[in-house]
């Protein structure tokens, strides 16, 4: 699966054939020839995505012990477990490109790998559990529905599996929000506060505007991406505005207004400085998140050691028989 990095005449014929397959809507499978850059871009994108699923367990895990009812607690545990599953589906897909999950986890822990900026914000109230399901999983659905048609087969198939589960995530979140919206003034205030804190960071999840996103053109050409960051962000906003109105919360953007010409909701300026600060490691919770992952890795070591010891004992028993 390793390809030479210098472009030869042979290689440019291979690239042409590869691009023709993509243009014809074919999916690329692990053993197919692919340009080294395609492989690298996919490893980068898929591993960031997998890391986001895993780190994404932390802000919500924070509220499992404090869920207001058994029903909410069961849902939240199931949701957080799904996110672990999503991480594993995508790590498994990434491994088909010839990297080890082991290696990817190390890159996350030593800070070389990135993950979604949204998970570096703290979860301060129970309403945050509702708003995360509604906004963050809602944004993930918009993103992942499109990625389910990406050119790389194992990635696309992982997305199909994930999308089926995300609907549960979003609905349980929106249900929490709708319940709080019908609650006491204090509960409504708590909900509005969570909406105010998570709205802009949720819009940033789609990444910088495509004009500032150097990889976009190539990723679109290779169908690693299918829609631009701006298109996806707009779609998310258009879907969310009526949902907010339905439960009587205000989205914290005075510039938000319907544009009858484009059929889109126009919105205000996103604070990209904040985004780059958070991506660069200086968000409110970056250090805490990685420390928690490291702790989980260290404290899980004995479990892995025990499983390995058990397997080798079984192996010896079988051989001795």
């Amino acid at each position, binding site marked *: 699966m390793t390809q030479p990095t210098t472009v030869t005449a042979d290689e440019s014929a291979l690239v042409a054939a590869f691009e023709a397959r993509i243009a014809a809507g074919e999916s690329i*499978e692990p*053993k*197919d*020839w692919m340009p080294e850059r395609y492989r690298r871009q996919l490893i980068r994108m898929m591993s960031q995505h997998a890391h986001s699923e895993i780190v994404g367990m932390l802000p919500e895990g924070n509220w499992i012990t404090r869920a207001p009812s058994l029903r909410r607690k069961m849902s939240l545990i*199931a949701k957080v*477990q*799904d996110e672990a*599953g999503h991480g*594993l*589906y995508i790590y*498994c*897909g990434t*491994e088909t490109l010839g990297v*080890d*999950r*082991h290696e990817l986890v190390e890159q996350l822990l030593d800070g070389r790998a990135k993950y979604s900026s949204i998970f570096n914000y703290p979860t301060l109230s129970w309403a945050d559990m509702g708003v995360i399901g509604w906004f963050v999983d809602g944004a993930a659905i918009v993103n992942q529905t499109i990625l389910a048609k990406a050119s790389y087969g194992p990635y696309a*198939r*992982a997305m199909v*599996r994930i999308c089926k*589960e995300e609907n549960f995530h979003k609905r349980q979140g929106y249900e929490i929000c709708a319940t709080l919206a019908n609650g006491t003034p204090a509960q409504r205030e708590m909900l509005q506060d969570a909406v105010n804190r998570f709205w802009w960071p949720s819009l940033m999840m789609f990444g910088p505007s495509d004009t500032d996103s150097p990889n976009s053109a190539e990723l679109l050409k290779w169908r690693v991406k299918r829609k631009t960051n701006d298109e996806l962000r707009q779609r998310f906003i258009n879907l969310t505005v009526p949902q907010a109105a339905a439960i009587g919360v205000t989205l914290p953007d005075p510039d938000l207004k319907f544009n009858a010409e484009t059929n889109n909701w126009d919105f205000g300026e996103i604070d990209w400085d904040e985004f780059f600060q958070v991506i660069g490691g200086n968000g409110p919770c970056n250090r805490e998140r990685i420390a928690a992952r490291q702790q989980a890795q260290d404290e899980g070591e004995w479990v892995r050691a025990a*499983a*390995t010891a*058990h*397997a*080798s004992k*079984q*192996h*010896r028993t*079988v*051989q001795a*028989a």
Partner: protein
Amino acid sequence: MAASVKDSPNDISSNGKDTDGQWSLWEVFTQPGKGAPHEHAGSVHATDAEHALQNARDVYARRGEAVSIWVVPADVIVASAPGDAGPFFDPGNDKAYRHPQFYKVPRGVRVF
């Protein structure tokens, strides 16, 4: 007696790990319902067959997606090479007479 293939994929040493120091890779196939064929779902890392089966259940069957699971050591799967797909499948592609459309039926007769 040597261990069966199922318990010991070729590339794992007796400690259940492959050469990179992580648990070996198992491909997972799930059967969505009785009577349906098993389909590839993804893969898991595990120390042995039983462990692979449990991991596969937790990762690929959290909501009744499967009534049966197969796990297979990834390195014992033999696959056709994508580059040879043309010539390899050729014998099946040039025999139009293997398809019902090849045969003429008198006008107005329903054959099926």
